[in-house]
Structure formats: structure tokens, C-alpha cells
């Protein structure tokens, strides 16, 4: 399991890249629509095809993004998994921080600069 280097922050280094290789390879495949479709048809079988370990497979099936990070996922490929599910980066931010998408957006807005309106 990958532990945070600072609170809420997982460093994607060699240890994580080794642990997460198969998971990231599966998510990399989602660049192709045919692969996204194959995943949607049978998610568990698609995880097995890429030899995900049980923790990674469970996290995929449960959409547990934090667990995916802790099991070696890289956000660059997890973003393609999110795209496969029809989620955008604010939705994913909400999932990881235990907020609704609207709450996550409000958190971003609370740090805003340079906008005269909106």
C-alpha cells in the first residue's frame, strides 16, 4: 500500500509504478473506445485480463479512487478510467474528498482569483 507523503498526497514514484503497473496499463487502454466498451460489457473480466490484484480489482468495481491511488494508480491513467465512467475531474475530486461535485467546486471557487464575476 502506498502511504501519503504529506496529508492526502500520494507520490507516484518507482514503488507505486511497480505496484500499479497492471492497473495503469488497463486504464491506459481506455484511450481506445473499443477497450472502454469491452470494460463496460464485463468489468471484472476486463480487470482479470490485465491481471489486476484483488485490491485493485475491488477498488475498480467500487469506484474507490483513493484505494486505487493506494494500490499504485497514477492519476493520469485514472483520469481515463473516470472518462470511461462519464465522470469529469470535479466529480473525481468530490469522490476523493468525500464531497458532492458542487461542494468540491465551491472549495475550488473559495480559492479563486482574477474573476470579476463567476
Amino acid at each position, binding site marked *: 500500500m502506498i502511504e501519503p507523503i504529506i496529508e492526502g498526497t500520494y507520490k507516484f514514484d518507482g514503488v507505486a509504478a511497480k505496484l500499479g503497473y497492471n492497473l*495503469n*496499463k488497463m486504464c491506459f487502454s481506455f*484511450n481506445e473506445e473499443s477497450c472502454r466498451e469491452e470494460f463496460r460489457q464485463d468489468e471484472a473480466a476486463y480487470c482479470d485480463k490485465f491481471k489486476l490484484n484483488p485490491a485493485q480489482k475491488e477498488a475498480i468495481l467500487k469506484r474507490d479512487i483513493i484505494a486505487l491511488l493506494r494500490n499504485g494508480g497514477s*492519476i493520469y491513467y485514472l483520469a481515463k478510467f473516470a472518462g470511461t465512467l462519464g465522470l469529469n475531474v470535479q466529480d473525481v475530486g468530490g469522490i476523493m474528498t468525500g464531497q458532492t461535485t458542487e461542494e468540491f467546486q465551491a472549495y475550488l471557487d473559495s480559492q*479563486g482569483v482574477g474573476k470579476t*464575476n463567476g
Partner: protein
Amino acid sequence: MAKILGAIGTSHVPAIGVAVDRGIEDTPYWKDLFAAYVPVREWINENKPDIAVLFYNDHGLEMFLDKKPTFSIGCADEYCNADEGWGIKPIPPLTGETDLSWHIVNHLIENDFDPTVCQDIKVDHGATVPMSVLYPGHTYKGTKVIPIAINCERHPMPKPSRSYAFGKAIGDAIRSWDSDQTVVVLGTGGLSHQLDGERAGYLNTEFDQMCMDKLVTDPESLTHYTNDELTEIAGAQGVELAMWLAMRGACSGPVDELVNVLIAPISNTAAGVQLLVPKD
């Protein structure tokens, strides 16, 4: 010899490209950001650089973990984008400039940088969003592009000091190229943001503004950070400052700052727009 006319720093976050596609640049969320691009686009129209040397990072379209270059240089006649898994549209191909690409590669290796040479690569939003925003309506047909990628995904990645020095060596290469063509250098990505983990959504606009100001007056002061420090101060993806450092390294020496605007949030990021022109 070829001449560097200026340097442009810009975000490359996909949402900006979507906003251009949808024609929603005047909506409240977007109008301040796109207002910042007006003088940048005017400067491009007035100066018409022949070549854009574009620093970006690949986000897992072409460069997977199986063979991941630390620094890489496009040496192709043409660059296309492709599906990245979440709905980005194909855009007209970018035209390459292989003579300058190879000149840069030769110069770098003689000067102790050893990049991966790419004769056939797809480019992702890191390269295509800046071109779409700077050349609205994909009007970049007459401009040649050299995409240069820096690994910003998997640690270890180049130290900020190294990205700056890499940019400097590329600037020297451009200025020693026997050609009367003109060049604009693009630094893309950033600024502060964190996409992943329970700290997702973290921004640090005070730090971003300081970085943009120091890029003008004292860029070397920014090269002392480690990537772990940038992660803590500017978020996990704040390490994309690498491309801005490479840009300023390439456009070295005293500069006039024509644009310096920071807008947040833009998607999950703080978005900088900067235009620097060498003092003659």
C-alpha cells in the same frame, strides 16, 4: 541566425480547449481568462513567428510507463492528437520543423543533455490546447511546431534546475541555427493544482503569482525548489512549473513583460497567462 521573438506561458488544461470549441469564451466563468489571451493573440498576429517551440508534458497518450522518456524532442513532419479517454476532439495536425528539431538534438547532445528523439509521436492536450487557444479556429497552419516533452508524471522527474538548464540549452541551439526564421517559445501547464488524493482541489495562487513575477526578474530563484517541495507548496501537479522554467531558460536574459494574468479556478487549476519579450 534564427531569432527568439518572445515566450508565452499558458495553461493547457483540457477545459479551456472545450470552452473554445463550444464558443463560451464570454461567459462569466471564462471571460477574464480569455480577455488575457487577447493581447497575446494580437502579439502573435503582429509578429507571426514561423516556429513555436512548445514545452509540454504527455499525460498518458503516447508515453506510458513501459518506456517513459524523461526529456523528449519531436522530430516529425507532422503531429496528430487522438482520443485520450474522456472525449477530447481531434484537431488538424500540427506541422513539424525537422531541420530545427535535429539541430536542437545535435546541440543538446554535444552540450550534455541526452533526450529521446521522437520521429513519430502523437501529442496530447498538453500541446494541442495551447495551440487551439493561441490560434483560435485552428489558424496555426502556417506555423511550424516542435513539441518538447518533460516527464511530469512519474517520479523521479527532472529537477526544476534541470528543466531550466534544458530550456537554456535549447535557447542556445535555436540562436545558433543558421536560418532567418523566427521562434516563439511556449511554456505550458500548471500552475498550482492537485488532481488526486484527499488534498485534491488544493491551489496556491500566492505562490503562483510569485513564480510568474520571479520568472521575469529572477527565474534562477525558482530553480532551488525540489519536486517534493513543489508538490507540497503548489500541489502534486504543481510540478508542471517545469515547462515554464524551460520556456524562460530558452528565452534567457532581460525581458519585458507584456502580459501577466492569473485566474483561478479554471477546472481544478490556477491558470497563468504570460507574455515575455526579450529586451533588445
